[in-house]
């Protein structure tokens, strides 16, 4: 698990909608489409660019779900890396300014 502080922000190149309890996210640049589970949705919605991922996991994920903090952090980092690879999330070791569409 990483000790480095990670900041995450939603890319401006996406469209997201909650429908029937599911969060659907589409990368409008290449039309790739993702459905997020409940935990992933919490992280996605909290990706404001200035709240560290560790804080999101501690204050929101672990508060809302019965999950081991170490495991939650590892899962969150894996999820963030995946969505970052698809251009859905921006990741930085510094706080991120919101992207202007």
């Amino acid at each position, binding site marked *: 698990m990483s000790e480095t502080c990670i900041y995450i922000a939603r890319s401006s190149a996406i*469209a997201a909608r909650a429908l029937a309890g599911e969060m659907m996210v589409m990368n409008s640049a290449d039309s790739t489409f993702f459905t997020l589970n409940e935990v992933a949705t919490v992280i996605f919605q909290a990706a404001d660019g200035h709240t560290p991922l560790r804080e999101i996991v501690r204050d929101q994920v672990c508060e809302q779900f019965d999950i081991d903090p170490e495991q939650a952090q590892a899962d969150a980092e894996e999820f963030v890396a995946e969505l970052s690879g698809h251009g859905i999330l921006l990741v930085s070791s510094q706080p991120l300014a919101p992207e202007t569409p």
Partner: protein
Amino acid sequence: MIAAPQKIACVEIGGIPIALSTDDERFLDLVSQRYDGFLSSSHPQFELQFDLTSTGPVSDDDVRVRREGDAWLIKRGDFQARWDPRTGRGSVRQNANPYSLDSVLRILHSLILAQRGGFLLHAASAICDGRAYLFSGVSGAGKTTITRFAPPDVTLLTDEISYLRLGADGYSAFGTPFAGELAKAGENCSAPVSALFFLEQGPENRIDELPSSEAVRRLMRNILFFAEDRALVEKLFTTACNFVSRVPIRRLTFYPDARVWDEVRTFARNFAGNLQEMPEHV
């Protein structure tokens, strides 16, 4: 030199009249025959001027639709078009091939609809008991087959390209002249959409639920949209989610005979009064 006088045919699909102008009498005849049933005396909302070439397709290039300033540039190996949504006017350079004409019209309608919350769907559609039913799927899934088995009181809107518009009371499906294997234009009429079925052929008739995410995914895959434009793609995604939240979407596995329409009617009866309610998340 005096320009040849322009002759105009107004083709109204989905309640959107588009004037097609040309100085070629034979091309005008082709337009009139091909879109018979969709010719209109309404005041056109848009206009396309055709400049006909005598050569065949220049290349096999796939279609590209992109913005250049305020206008849309639409290019394929067999035609080139430019359309300005601000003025509503555009020009097309192609030979007198009716398939090129169909494609230009489909692309233009897809651009107009995208701005208005509607879309063209790779689907057959038909009106049964006053409501429209959509049957979507890849080629070979059974779109034409299911229309062939339609009872006599069912009105065919299309066996290939469905036309969906959002109105005050929800989505309506309109007939289109764009035919698939049936080689027959749809009726020029419309009805509120009752359901969308994604088709699969199987040993028996059955209707299964689809999760919303899967419905949106399948819907996006079957919407006809060509423009390389991020904002419009996002709008289309919002439209797809809106449609899924308003219209029942199911998987219809069917055995190819007329009994599949009993299944559709039974579904319709069970869902009467529960259609196109305002969505939870809009």
